[in-house]
């Protein structure tokens, strides 16, 4: 039930930190992967993350949209990676309701959290660079982050591998 949000820029060490938090939990430990690998770049990232999780006794659940539909077989701790992928999948899939995506994702994450001892959610800081379009997407991720942070028991920003607790 406690919710912990972990944010930071690209390659700042978020996953390593979050996996450490999950490892400290008792089993079962679920790793919920929301990244739909489509390019070689994606597959490389997935392989890298998978290798890092090796031997950590995580049960991997791949779910790219509608994570509110997940039914965990047994109560445990979970790590969801990550809000940005989930939001892109929800907003840019066929028949997507773009405007409703942010609210839906927040509801889905809270539904998942209700089944967890603790849910760790990884997100990204994506709104602090030169604008490159996709403002509705950037805005949706920002709104999800803010809504989750408001409900979260703890929020960390990871900077150069250093976790800074901001809530």
């Amino acid at each position: 039930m406690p919710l912990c949000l972990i944010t930071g820029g690209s390659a700042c060490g978020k996953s390593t930190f979050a996996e450490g938090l999950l490892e400290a939990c008792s089993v079962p430990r679920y790793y919920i992967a929301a990244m739909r690998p489509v390019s070689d770049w994606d597959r490389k990232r997935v392989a890298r993350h998978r290798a890092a999780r090796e031997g950590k006794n995580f049960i991997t659940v791949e779910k790219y949209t509608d994570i509110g539909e997940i039914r965990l077989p047994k109560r445990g701790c979970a790590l969801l990676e990550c809000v940005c992928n989930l939001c892109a999948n929800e907003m840019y899939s066929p028949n997507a309701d773009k405007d409703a995506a942010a609210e839906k994702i927040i509801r889905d994450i809270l539904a998942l959290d209700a089944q967890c001892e603790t849910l760790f959610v990884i997100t990204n800081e994506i709104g602090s660079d030169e604008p490159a379009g996709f403002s509705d997407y950037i805005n949706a991720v920002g709104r999800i982050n803010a809504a989750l942070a408001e409900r979260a028991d703890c929020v960390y920003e990871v900077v150069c591998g250093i976790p800074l607790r901001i809530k």
Partner: protein
Amino acid sequence: MVLIIGGEGAGKRSYARSLGFSDSDMADAVIDGRSVVYNAQDMVLAEPSRVNELIEKLSEKAVVICNEVGSGLIPQEAKKREARVAVGRLCCVLAQRADKVVRVVCGLPQRIK
């Protein structure tokens, strides 16, 4: 080694000056005899594949200054995408090795290690 990070124009070099370094001690994205290197991200962006070599050289400096990048959308262009991840990793390794890590926001230094 002191690692100073922050956004563009955040006041990172001013902070380095407050540590007693002068502008003549500061090298702009180049490794030479000077004790401070700034714009470390530019060296990674120029040659992302040589990031490990760069990390070793920068580890010997008194002060390394690097812009925080990676808080925007993933770039479409493959080289930029790789470079961005490489800058992130460089900062993680340098932060691990550093005696002190300072993040400068709006000119205000915040010691995070």
